[in-house]
């Protein structure tokens, strides 16, 4: 005997209490029976006292026995009494419902064999087929078995707890929707197996995977399924034609105010397919490419978009197919910013070539006599650079300033001495302004040695002191770089250090302008972003930010930043001066179809399947108990006239 809800001791104790109560009620009921009669005169035998007695005696033992038996059966039903041993216990099943992005594709004409409520309405998706399959399986499961639903896409998420009430499972199944990521089958099945083992009570039942079993190449290569003796696969037919965008990327065209856009299209069908890719920027068409993609193959279509403005690039795929989610991708490209350099110089031709080499720099040359110490506007503060070429202004300007070889005088840039042909120049390492500068025998005619103030950074030094310094304002928004020598002097014109130093200064003054921007649309899910070895080493400078600016967890491995985005959103990966924007608006798609092992059970259980055998006998026990109580009530209830048989001949005789 096995009691699921009550132990034998508990059951016997409870039954004893109920039986004692019933017997007491029985005796009380029989002794306290009151009847209203027309007269009492015939009960009194003349000469004898009236027979007033109170015997505690069971007058109708069969009635009491029927009552006790009926209550015992009802108690057994409440205790969910079962015959047999462990094999008859209720089992714990887990449904792993595929909610990957591909489940949003329209369903083909075929349906899940044997499934209940198979949707045949127009527009039904693979998700609808999977729901029907899961519900069909659930209806074959005995009601006593516990079931848990796990939604599996890129992450396996439990949708319910262990539920005895299968209606809650059906509700959760019907509420399931396709996600944005591809199926991580290993994780889903491993999670189901672990949670089934952790359940403790009951016997492990089936783990049922419901879906088409489409995996990414990464998942297929790293497939690590647990050993599942009771794995059932309810396959969903997904034989539909589909071609979709795999990625949409944009990179700033070198030397131009333009973006190079690259779209990759994949054909998921079994036959070659010709598709047209249309690109639009700000709803203005930029071009259309028609590509023929072989079955299971991939093609690229490239575009060039000439713009400096920020906006949204739309890529659309025609004609429409079964899965609309990957026929459209939107890519948000940032504005191409530039730095405004105002050069006060009486010999602008010396500096002009160096500044004109970079299209991101807009130079404005003015004679030193026109210098006005105007404060730059706040919104242009970061993108404005003031270059003072070998003169000392009456009032020192605010903002970013590159001061080239200032003459001696009062105010900022206190010059200690003037040195001819300085030797052995040493560049201070680990400074962004001296990145790449190694040369020591720089041919400088004259250099001023500064008296650095507190907080000034030494950039270059000779044995007599610093010849290049940098300082940052107290609010950190403006920088001043003071060079004690003229990098544009004829002797230095052909030195590599000159453009390198200028580039470092420009990057230092306006880092956002000179950051390399590479934006791309990829699919949600696990994203891998390549970084350089230096960027990977400087983990503290790495940031992965969500659209709202929140930091996302990431991992750096093999010069790659790995992070996971479960929803379609925009993610920025910042590594030093490099910023990569991921528009994860495309759903993560599959590469291969999973072939289940041969030992796996398939489909919804048939009517004679062992799974369908219900081991519940409590409904029968309850019904039998009720029948016994009804019998007792019919034959021994108060309405029954005990021993009174009315027949017409007797009445006639009596009359």
């Amino acid at each position, binding site marked *: 005997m096995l009691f699921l809800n009550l132990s034998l001791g508990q059951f016997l104790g409870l039954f004893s209490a109920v039986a004692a109560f019933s017997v007491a009620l029985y005796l009380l009921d029989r002794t306290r029976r009151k009847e209203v*009669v*027309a007269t009492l005169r015939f009960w009194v035998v003349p000469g004898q006292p009236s*027979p*007033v007695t109170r015997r505690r005696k069971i007058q109708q033992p069969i009635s009491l026995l029927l009552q006790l038996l009926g209550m015992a059966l009802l108690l057994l039903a409440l205790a969910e009494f079962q015959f047999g041993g462990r094999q008859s216990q209720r089992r714990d099943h887990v449904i792993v419902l595929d909610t990957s992005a591909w489940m949003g594709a329209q369903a083909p004409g075929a349906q899940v064999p044997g499934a209940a409520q198979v949707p045949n309405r127009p527009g039904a998706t693979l998700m609808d087929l999977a729901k029907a399959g899961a519900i069909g399986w659930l209806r074959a499961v005995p009601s006593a078995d516990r079931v848990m639903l796990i939604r599996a896409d890129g992450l396996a998420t439990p949708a319910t707890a262990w539920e005895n009430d299968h209606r809650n499972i059906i509700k959760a199944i019907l509420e399931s929707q396709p996600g944005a990521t591809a199926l991580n089958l290993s994780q889903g099945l491993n999670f189901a197996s672990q949670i089934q083992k952790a359940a403790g009570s009951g016997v492990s039942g089936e783990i049922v995977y419901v879906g088409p079993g489409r995996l990414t190449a990464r998942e297929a290569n790293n497939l690590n399924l647990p050993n599942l003796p009771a794995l059932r696969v309810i396959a969903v037919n997904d034989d539909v034609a589909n071609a979709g965008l795999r990625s949409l990327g944009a990179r700033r065209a070198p030397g131009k105010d333009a973006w190079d856009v690259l779209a990759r299209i994949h054909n998921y069908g079994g036959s070659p397919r010709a598709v047209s890719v249309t690109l639009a920027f700000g709803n203005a068409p930029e071009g259309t490419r028609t590509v023929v993609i072989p079955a299971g193959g991939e093609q690229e279509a490239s575009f060039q978009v000439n713009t400096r403005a920020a906006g949204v690039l739309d890529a659309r795929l025609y004609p429409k197919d079964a899965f609309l989610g990957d026929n459209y991708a939107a890519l948000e490209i940032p504005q191409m910013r530039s730095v405004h350099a105002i050069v006060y110089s009486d010999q602008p031709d010396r500096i002009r070539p160096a500044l004109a080499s970079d299209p991101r720099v807009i130079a404005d040359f003015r004679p030193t006599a026109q210098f006005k110490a105007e404060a730059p506007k706040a919104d242009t503060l970061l993108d404005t650079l003031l270059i003072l070429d070998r003169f000392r202004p009456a009032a020192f300007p605010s903002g970013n300033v590159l001061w080239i070889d200032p003459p001696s005088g009062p105010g900022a840039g206190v010059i200690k001495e003037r040195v001819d042909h300085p030797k052995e120049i040493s560049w201070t390492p680990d400074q962004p302004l001296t990145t790449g500068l190694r040369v020591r025998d720089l041919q400088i005619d004259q250099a001023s040695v500064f008296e650095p103030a507190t907080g000034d950074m030494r950039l270059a030094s000779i044995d007599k002191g610093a010849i290049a310094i940098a300082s940052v304002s107290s609010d950190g928004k403006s920088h001043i770089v003071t060079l004690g020598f003229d990098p544009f002097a004829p002797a230095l014109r052909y030195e590599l250090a000159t453009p390198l130093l200028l580039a470092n200064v420009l990057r230092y003054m306006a880092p956002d302008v000179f950051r390399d921007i590479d934006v791309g649309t990829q699919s949600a899910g696990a994203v891998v972003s390549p970084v350089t070895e230096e960027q990977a080493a400087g983990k503290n400078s790495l940031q992965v930010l969500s659209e709202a600016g929140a930091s996302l967890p990431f991992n750096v491995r093999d010069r790659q930043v790995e992070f996971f985005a479960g929803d379609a959103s925009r993610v920025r990966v910042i590594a030093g001066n490099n910023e990569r924007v991921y528009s994860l608006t495309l759903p993560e798609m599959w590469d291969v179809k999973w072939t289940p092992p041969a030992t796996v059970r398939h489909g919804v259980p048939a009517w004679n399947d062992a799974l369908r055998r219900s081991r519940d006998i409590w409904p029968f026990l309850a019904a039998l108990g009720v029948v016994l109580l009804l019998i007792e009530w019919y034959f021994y209830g108060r309405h029954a006239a005990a021993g*009174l048989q009315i027949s017409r001949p007797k009445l006639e005789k009596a009359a």
Partner: protein
Amino acid sequence: MANEPLLDREFLERLERLTIHWQRSFAGLVGGHNRSRFSGGGQEFLDHRHFHQGDDLRSVNWRAFMRLDKMFLKMFQIEPRVPVRLLLDTSASMGTGERTGSSSDKFTFARRLAAALCYVGLVRLDTIQILPFSTDLREGKTSGGGRHRYRAAAQFLEGLESQGVTDFHKVVREFLNEYPQRGLVIVISDFLDEANCEKALQYLADYGNELMLLQIWAEEDRTPPWTGEVDLEEAETGGHMRIQVDEEARRRYTEAFDAFTARIKEIALRNDGKYAAIPTSLALEDAIFGTMIRTRSIA
């Protein structure tokens, strides 16, 4: 049930061929179809008076007219009509007995029986006086003059309720004081009272009334259905008796009841009356067309 008539139309039509039957002859009990030893319908000469226009010519003394050439009218004293009196028990004990084998309690059955007898009498142009009683004799209802007076009598019966304690002695005393004329007295009752009703019934007969005793009893009055310990409560007095009922006790009870019934029957037969014991489990139709005809209470 409260709005349903006591007797339906079909049953009333079947009653029209019946007659209330009594054996004795009573002065003034006319209009019925029973034979009487009093000739002339009980009329007695009282006086003469002058004839007036519109008087019945059959009452003119033609001999006096021939002799005196004047028209005199003979006047007769007419005996008052003595109605058939129906004493209906409305005590609380009549409200019992609905649970076992009968569709109604004794009181409802008795009212229906009274209504049937009233209709039979009205059809035969008898005058029926219904007198309900329990502790006292209550105000009655007299009906006569044909079947069209039945409705009023039936409404009177429908308005009665069973309550009070039966006191046959007091009731008979009041009856004899109020209605000294002899006649047919029909008593519909279970005859279950605290005092002995047999003496009271004998008084009623000794004063020259012909008794028709119709004893109404429920099946549980004769054969109690209970076994085990029972707390019995008397309907009229509220007296209690806690008793252990077994087969032997039930047998003794039935014997005592049968003996009581036999004594009631003996009183009726000893005084040239009629007696019928009618259980409520019998249909009223069977009771009238079977039991009462067999006992010649009606014919």
